[in-house]
């Protein structure tokens, strides 16, 4: 015997379904089919694994799926149902600040598509990272495998306004005390204090905001097994320093980062690598004369990013009596249209008192570093996507021309050596079976202006992934 609530429910159900029962079976079936179609907009996999023809079975499936969808949206089920049926939109409300308590300012209605929700509502910041495994070969040499980078990223949200982010790297697979092996390095570790969209604070170990690759160096995000030469010798990557500064979004696609950071160490500058070996990377760093670094980016047009960066500081904390100034100016751009990608970068570095610096370092170490007073480099890289942009797999054909000279200008009394006036054609393929996995191949044609010292060409194979 059914109890009273069941009976009442049954009577109500009879009344409200009466019009339905009066419809022709084909009409009901059509409407159920339409419902199934709508459900597939929420979950494309719905109903594909069954071929139920029984109407009741199909209704059961719809009911179970609907219950599942509602359960997944448990925090605001009433809002979801109300929104689908009758939206009640308030016509007036006083302005108020975001994130303040006292009820939702934005009423979540629905989420559909190929998505995953965070069921517990927490910010999803698991350990992530990227890996870079290379096989390099120079002309006349054998293939040399190298697990170049093993990088883990960790983050934590103390609140919606205070967040931590870090990047810990192991290079070349092995670190052994006293031996010339790889390195373990802290690439980033900082706190962000989000105050306003246009003004936030950041403090800790930060990436110097310079160029394309330094802040955007996940293997699938650039072509070529190795990073561009210009972004190795003219702009050091990965360049990180201790410091603090400000970040923000100025609107209309403009955003900036500007920091006071530990300075470069001029004692490690040299002719071949320019200033690249001078980065302190947080170890034995100096804030006696903090350097200023900043970057302004425009990303207001879809698939176009333009950026310009500067660096200005003194680098003489390890060369007593000589405190050379280092200034860097850089601009870059990335643009994608249809199946084509373009990116390019220009950078120029000035080192003041380079002659005195060379003499002082020679006194200290016995070796004249022959550091130039100006260094310059640029590259351009067109690329073509063989598959459509919406395809799951991606095959990119690219070529990159680079020109870089770490002795663009020399101090009085010093002569530039032509082997440091270099250029390279890097051409190859990037295949991505998944957006986060890149299998790369490239060939480097390397040249310089010297009639005596010839650079070697190189073949590189690599696989890199992000997770």
């Amino acid at each position: 015997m059914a109890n009273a609530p069941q009976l009442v429910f049954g009577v109500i159900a009879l009344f409200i379904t009466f019009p339905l029962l009066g419809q022709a079976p084909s009409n009901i079936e059509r409407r159920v089919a339409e419902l199934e179609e709508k459900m597939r907009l929420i979950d494309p996999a719905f109903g594909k694994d069954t071929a139920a023809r029984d109407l009741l079975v199909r209704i059961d499936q719809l009911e179970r799926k609907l219950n599942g969808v509602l359960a997944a949206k448990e925090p605001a089920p009433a809002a979801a149902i109300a929104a689908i049926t009758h939206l009640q939109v308030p016509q007036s409300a006083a302005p108020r600040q975001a994130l303040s308590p006292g009820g939702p300012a934005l009423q979540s209605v629905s989420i559909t598509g190929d998505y995953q929700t965070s069921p517990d509502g927490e910010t999803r910041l698991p350990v992530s990272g990227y890996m870079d495994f290379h096989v390099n070969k120079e002309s006349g040499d054998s293939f040399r495998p190298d697990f170049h980078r093993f990088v883990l990223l960790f983050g934590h949200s103390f609140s919606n306004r205070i967040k931590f982010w870090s990047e810990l790297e192991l290079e070349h697979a092995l670190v052994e005390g006293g031996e010339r092996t790889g390195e373990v390095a802290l690439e980033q570790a900082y706190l962000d204090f989000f105050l306003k969209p246009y003004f936030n604070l950041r403090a800790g170990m930060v990436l110097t905001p310079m160029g394309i690759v330094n802040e955007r160096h996940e293997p699938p995000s650039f072509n070529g097994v190795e990073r561009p030469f210009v972004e190795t010798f003219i702009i050091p990557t990965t360049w990180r320093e201790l410091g603090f500064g400000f970040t923000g979004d100025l609107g209309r696609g403009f955003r900036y980062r500007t920091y006071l950071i530990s300075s470069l160490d001029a004692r490690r500058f040299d002719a071949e690598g320019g200033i690249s070996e001078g980065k302190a990377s947080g170890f034995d760093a100096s804030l006696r004369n903090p350097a200023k670094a900043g970057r302004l980016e425009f990303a207001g047009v879809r698939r176009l990013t333009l950026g310009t960066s500067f660096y200005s500081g003194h680098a003489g904390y390890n060369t007593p009596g000589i405190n050379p100034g280092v200034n860097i100016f850089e601009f870059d751009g990335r643009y994608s249209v249809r199946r084509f990608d373009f990116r390019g970068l220009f950078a120029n570095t000035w080192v003041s008192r380079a002659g005195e610096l060379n003499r002082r370092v020679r006194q200290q170490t016995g070796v004249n570093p022959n550091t130039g007073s100006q260094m310059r480099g640029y590259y351009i890289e067109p690329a073509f996507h063989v598959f459509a942009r919406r395809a799951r797999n991606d095959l990119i054909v690219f070529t990159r021309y680079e020109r870089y000279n770490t002795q663009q200008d020399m101090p009085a009394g010093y002569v530039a050596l032509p082997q440091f006036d270099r250029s390279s054609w890097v051409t190859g393929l990037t295949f991505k079976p998944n957006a986060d996995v890149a299998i790369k191949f490239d060939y480097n044609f390397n040249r310089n202006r010297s009639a005596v010292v010839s650079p070697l060409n190189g073949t590189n194979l690599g696989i890199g992934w992000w997770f």
Partner: protein
Amino acid sequence: MVVLMRYASTFFVIALAFGQDPASKPDRVVNILAERFTYNPSKITVRQGQLVEFVLTSDDTDHGFKIVAAGIDVAIPQQGMGEVRVRFVAEEKGTFPFECSRACGAGHHLMRGTLVVR
């Protein structure tokens, strides 16, 4: 009784799908492209009371999309794996940040934007 209840369920399911009034069609649809480490556009202005739909796609890896004020936190599928549509009603005026909630690379914390309700 079981049959009746099943038909009642059918009615509710059908009512949910077909019972929409015109308001369920979004007043404003905004296509947002996510890539390391930007949303484009990153500043979106809507009017109070509008039913807004964000259509989110990625040009590279999976990204997150989180609006604290709306209780929304979803993953945007990686390139080539589809899109996610988020609907909400902009009930109150204000400035509401949104951010990437899924670790996406070295510049993850730069990936932020602002929704302005006027």
